[in-house]
Structures are given as structure tokens and as C-alpha cells.
């Protein structure tokens, strides 16, 4: 069977499975629609949370980012997992005890203020919508690359599938579909990683393979990689940080609290039966997430070594038409990568390189006209490497590799069977679809529950609200699809913004709502707005007002990264601290919250008396 047919079969089978589950899990009540009836067992909820959390970016791009950044890429690994510790002990159990459907509803009730709830709805919508644009484009990219249809057609098909199971199934349909999607995406990620780990180190567990010796030698894989990349003028893989140590510190912190504050993640903890289940379900979610996140650094380092090996025979690892081969003698010999015959002849390049050249994600330009590929850092500050490259007659780096290739081409590089390639296609789609569905649910519940029922039509019947939920979901899908088809110019910067907003506005507000009994509405609202505006100000200064090119105002803040060298992607953590400080300052000079609110906080802190989630206002 040829590759294209196999891909259609595997992807088609997974789609049929998702729709089948959706029909089985139709939602009949608002409680089922918003919170899956509050009855999802912790292990299953953990899997669904993991699928919800791991987006197309986690699946396709993260390993490539780490491969490029080396040690500094660890900030994504620690940041996107460490947030779950905060969720488990600071937010999830208390929000579950509170027993309502949405994050804005908690903020509105706790701070006894419609304004607070509306500010939260706005933050939620901005964070979720910016996030979903990336998912829809991800669906389009995965479809076009694997199914040979245009990216636009891919987005229409994706919209249709999400529509079917999200609109009819609500949170219940989404949750059970996400469990299936998790299984598909984790298999798709791990299978190629295991094959490559065996080929390079003989160890079938990638997490251990990364710390093992290269097959047939006593040289550890990371030592070899460090030596190869520094020889070629790149930074040392195991020690290169992301900007300054302070920037890496703040960036990690921002991702952690951003993760804990993202509404589509928090919402998952409303679906478990009780407070104890909310605690353990965060743990299960992290187990399932870490399965992918601890494999990613292995994929990153191995694929990087592999790529260098493919184009430079001095490395001692070759991927040719016969598969990947480790040449133990060459590994030990530390041959000269600048020798003429070390560089791969362009005509002799393996098939997978030819295939990816067609997509434009891999580009070769023969700058010195010798018909060989020279892949190195031509902007290096390493004088020794620079001198050697010049002496060898190298005229600049000749190979550009898009980071996404690291995961997508992995099975081809290792010459794995067609079904593995098909599985990776299905996995990429599962990752994008499951995250899109979770985000759509957060958006639709904020509109139908917090705006329609909370503000415009408080007396709406349950049936009416359920209908409003489905209609707003359908509209949200159309808007998300439209934005995916016509991505606004700012699409690239938006995910960082979503984390920044969640970190600087929602997380501190929820946390103070639980841990500070005396925090009043004036403090909370002022804090949220201060954190939000501080973050937006710093991001817009770098990237333009609402990401419109030409409206950057870096001179106002005194140049790029002027705040202690912190990049705009990392500023959310500082925004959160601004939020806390402003909130406590305003709280001090305004009157304390009413008695019944303080009682409510005391009650939320205690597990006993948790009831089914009902969302009543």
C-alpha cells in the first residue's frame, strides 16, 4: 500500500472514532454540556487535560525549538509542566469546591461584582481566541502536508469535525474524544522516538537513551553532540541559556503561572466528581503530559545529532537510503568536520531531504559552488571555528532547516514503515483538534453562561441556555475558522500574549480570591487591569500596538528588552507581580468585603460539602 493511501486510512479511522464517541456522549443538560456532569474519573480527566493542553505547537514545534535552543529550551519543559503543581495545590481543588461552571463566574461571585466578572470574560476571550488561531492554522498545515489537500480545505474539514463533536457533545463529548485523541497523539510521538533511540544508543527508552553512550562507543550522546556543535561554531548544547539567566528564570515563571491561569485548562477541573479527585487529576494530567515532554528533549538532541551526521560524515552517524548507521570508529576518532570530503555531496543526499526540499522547509544554497552541503554557524564568535571555516573555503551556511522538520521528518529520517508516518500525521491532527475543542468550549461557556445568562438574560431556562451554548460554540468555530483562513499579521506573536494575559490577570485574581479572605472587589479589579495593561504595554512596545507593524514604541521604554533584559514573551510573570502589588495596595485603602463573602471563602477552603457542579448564579 502506498504512503498516501495508508495516511488516508489511518487518519480516516481516527476521525471515525472521534465522531463515534461524540454520538455516544451527547450532552442533554447544561451540567453535562459545561462540566460533563461532574463525573469524569481522575485518570480519564488527566488524559483529556493532557490532550487539551498539548497543542499542535507542543506536538510539532517544541522538539525543534529545543533542538535549536539546547539547554535554554528547558524553559518550555519546566514552564509548561511546573504550572500543574500550582494548579494542583493553589487553584483546582478550591475551584472544584466552589462548584460552578466557569472562571469568570468564580471571579464575579467571589468579588461580588459584575465588573470583575466582565473583566475576566474579556481576558478569557482574548487569551483563548489568540490561542485558537494557532490551532486552526496548525490543522491546516497538518492536513496540507500529509493529505495533499490545500491548507484552506484542511481548515474546513477540521471545522466540520470539531463542529460535530463539540456542538453536540459539549464538555462531555469533548472530554471522551480527547481521551481517544491523547492515545493517538502519544503513540505517534513515542514510536518514532523509540526507533531512533535504539538506532543511536541501543536503549529503547528515549529518556534513558539521551543519557546513554552512542552504540559501540564509550562516548555519551550528549558529549558527542556538544563536541559536534561547538566544532561547527554553534553554542554548546548542554549549557547555552535562553538570553540571560534572569530572563530564563522569569520566562519559566511566566509560563508556569500562565499555564495555571489558562481558562481552558482550569475548566477541566470542574468535570471531576469531588475535591480529592481534582487534586489527583492534576497529577494524572502531568503524568500524561510528561510522557511527551520528557521524550521531546531526547527527540530534539537525537534529531540534531542525526541531521549533523547526515550532512557531515566526520560526525560518524549517517542516514542514507539504507537507514541510520552509527560508525563507532568515526565517533571515537573525532574527525575534522572541515575536511573537504566530510561535507555531504548535494547529489548524494538522502531521499527524505529531497522530499522536504519540495515543501520549502529545508533549503540548500551552494554558496561556495563546490556541490557539497556546508552546515555550520557562520555568525559564530568562536574564533577557532571561524578560522577553520575560512581556511576550508566555506562561504557561509548553506542549509536552512525549519524547526518543525525535527518531529515531522523523524520517521522518514529513520526509514520507519509507512504506518508510522501515517500515525504521526494522525497525531499532529489529534493534537490540534483536541486543543481547539477545549478552547472553543472555554469561549462558548464564557459567552452563554457568563454573558447571556449572567448579564443579558438571567431568567433564561436551562434548555434556552443549552441552545445559547451550542449557538455560541457554532459561532466561535466559524470565527476561529475565519481567523485560521485569514490569519491576522500578528498570528506568530499571539500564543505568547495568551500566556502573558493568563499569567498577569487571571491567575493572580483567582489565587487572591482563595488565599486572601480580605481581598475586596476594588483591589481585585485594579490588580487585574494593572497586570493586563502593564503586560500589553510592554508587548505592544516591542511588537506594535495590537501587533500592527510600525506602531512599536520602543523608544518610550528605552529600547528592546529594557526591563532588566527581559524579553516580551517573558513579561507576564512581572505583570503578575504588578497585579499582586496593586491589588494589595488598593485593598488597604478601601473597605473590606462583606461578611457573607468572607464566609464563602472559608467554605471554599474546606472539602466537605462539595456538591455536583450546578453553575447556579
Amino acid at each position, binding site marked *: 500500500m502506498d504512503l498516501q493511501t495508508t495516511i488516508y486510512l489511518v487518519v480516516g479511522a481516527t476521525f471515525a472514532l472521534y465522531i463515534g464517541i461524540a454520538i455516544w456522549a451527547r450532552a442533554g443538560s447544561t451540567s453535562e454540556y459545561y462540566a460533563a456532569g461532574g463525573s469524569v474519573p481522575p485518570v480519564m480527566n488527566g488524559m483529556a487535560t493532557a490532550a487539551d493542553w498539548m497543542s499542535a505547537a507542543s506536538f510539532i514545534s517544541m522538539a525543534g525549538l*529545543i533542538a535549536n535552543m539546547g*539547554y535554554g*529550551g*528547558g*524553559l518550555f*519543559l*519546566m514552564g509548561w*509542566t*511546573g504550572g*500543574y*503543581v*500550582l494548579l*494542583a*495545590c*493553589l487553584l483546582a*481543588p478550591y475551584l472544584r469546591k466552589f462548584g460552578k461552571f466557569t472562571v469568570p463566574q468564580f471571579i464575579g461571585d467571589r468579588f461580588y461584582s459584575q465588573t470583575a466578572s466582565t473583566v475576566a470574560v474579556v481576558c478569557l476571550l482574548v487569551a483563548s481566541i489568540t490561542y485558537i488561531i494557532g490551532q486552526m492554522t496548525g490543522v491546516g498545515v497538518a492536513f496540507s502536508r500529509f493529505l495533499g489537500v490545500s491548507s484552506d480545505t484542511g481548515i474546513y474539514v477540521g471545522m466540520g469535525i470539531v463542529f460535530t463533536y463539540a456542538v453536540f457533545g459539549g464538555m462531555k463529548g469533548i472530554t471522551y474524544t480527547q481521551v481517544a485523541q491523547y492515545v493517538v497523539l502519544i503513540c505517534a510521538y513515542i514510536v518514532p522516538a523509540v526507533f531512533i533511540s535504539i538506532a543511536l544508543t541501543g536503549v529503547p527508552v528515549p*529518556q*534513558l537513551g*539521551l*543519557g*546513554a*553512550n552512542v552504540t559501540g562507543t564509550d562516548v*555519551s*550522546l*550528549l*558529549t558527542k553532540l556538544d563536541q559536534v556543535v561547538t566544532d561547527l561554531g554553534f553554542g554548546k548544547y*548542554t*549549557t547555552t541559556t535562553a538570553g540571560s*539567566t534572569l530572563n*530564563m*528564570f522569569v520566562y*519559566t*515563571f511566566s509560563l508556569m503561572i500562565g499555564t495555571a491561569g489558562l481558562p481552558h485548562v482550569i475548566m477541566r477541573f470542574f468535570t471531576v466528581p*469531588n*475535591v*480529592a479527585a481534582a*487534586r*489527583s487529576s*492534576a*497529577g494524572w494530567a*502531568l*503524568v500524561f503530559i*510528561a510522557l511527551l*515532554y*520528557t521524550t521531546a*528533549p531526547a527527540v530534539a538532541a537525537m534529531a540534531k545529532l542525526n541531521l549533523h551526521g547526515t550532512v557531515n560524515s566526520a560526525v560518524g552517524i549517517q542516514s542514507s537510503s539504507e537507514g541510520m548507521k552509527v560508525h563507532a570508529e568515526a565517533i571515537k576518532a573525532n574527525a575534522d568536520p572541515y575536511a573537504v570530503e566530510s561535507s555531504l555531496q548535494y547529489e548524494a543526499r538522502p531521499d527524505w531531504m529531497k522530499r522536504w526540499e519540495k515543501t520549502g522547509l529545508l533549503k540548500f544554497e551552494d554558496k561556495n559552488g563546490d556541490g557539497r552541503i556546508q552546515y555550520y554557524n557562520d555568525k559564530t564568535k568562536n574564533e577557532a571555528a571561524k578560522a577553520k571555516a575560512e581556511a576550508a573555503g566555506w562561504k557561509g551556511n548553506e542549509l536552512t532547516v525549519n524547526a518543525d522538520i525535527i518531529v515531522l521528518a523523524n520517521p522518514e529520517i529513520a526509514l520507519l514503515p509507512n504506518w508510522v508516518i501515517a500515525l504521526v500525521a494522525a497525531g499532529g491532527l489529534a493534537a490540534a483538534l483536541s486543543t481547539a475543542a477545549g478552547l472553543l468550549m472555554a469561549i462558548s461557556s464564557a459567552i452563554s453562561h457568563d454573558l447571556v445568562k449572567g448579564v443579558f438574560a438571567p431568567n433564561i431556562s436551562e434548555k434556552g441556555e443549552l441552545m445559547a451554548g451550542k449557538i455560541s460554540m457554532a459561532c466561535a468555530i466559524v470565527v476561529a475558522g475565519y481567523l485560521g483562513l485569514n490569519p491576522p499579521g500578528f498570528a506568530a506573536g499571539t500564543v505568547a500574549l495568551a500566556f502573558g494575559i493568563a499569567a498577569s490577570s487571571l491567575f493572580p485574581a483567582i489565587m487572591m480570591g482563595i488565599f486572601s479572605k480580605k481581598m475586596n472587589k476594588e483591589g481585585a479589579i485594579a490588580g487585574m487591569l494593572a497586570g493586563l495593561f502593564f503586560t500589553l504595554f510592554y508587548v505592544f512596545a516591542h511588537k506594535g500596538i495590537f501587533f500592527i507593524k510600525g506602531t512599536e514604541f520602543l523608544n518610550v521604554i528605552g529600547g528592546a528588552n529594557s526591563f532588566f533584559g527581559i524579553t516580551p514573551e517573558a513579561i507576564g510573570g512581572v505583570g503578575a507581580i504588578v497585579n499582586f502589588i496593586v491589588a494589595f495596595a488598593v485593598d488597604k485603602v478601601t473597605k473590606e468585603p462583606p461578611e457573607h463573602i468572607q464566609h464563602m471563602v*472559608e*467554605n471554599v*477552603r*474546606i*472539602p*466537605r*460539602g*462539595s456538591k455536583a457542579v450546578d453553575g447556579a448564579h
Partner: protein
Amino acid sequence: MQHNHDVQGYWKATLGLIAKVLAIWFLVSFGAGILFADALNGISLGGYPLGFWFAHQGSMYVFIALIFWYGKKMGDIDREFDVHED
């Protein structure tokens, strides 16, 4: 609240546990993975430099263990102060 629970004692015990959890959370990621990574890289764990290992592997394993440990300890505290769910 129908029984006269020691609400303040319960909250104090809870905050104490959270402080311990967050201290370990901070030590493994921000500490071992970032601030002290350079120093720890002098030690190796198999083929891993230790600081790099904490940033790319170890902190995540500790996070998982932390959440389950927290869940178990919270369960104990809930029962001790008789505020657990039925």
C-alpha cells in the same frame, strides 16, 4: 458548618503543606534547573550533566511526585480535622 471544626488549624496545616510543596517545586526547577545548573553540570548522571538533566528531565519527574504526595498529605489533613468528603 454543623460540627465545630478547627477551621483555623486546618487552614494553617494546609498552608504549611503548600509551603513545603512550593519550596521543593522552586528548588528543582528554578534552583537546580536554572540558578545552580552551571555548578551542577560538573556532576554527571550517566551521560547527563546534572544541571541539564534537571532542566530537561528531572524537574518534571519531581513535579509529578510532588502532586501525588500533596494529594495524599492533603487527604490526611482533611481526615485529621474531620473536613473530608463523604
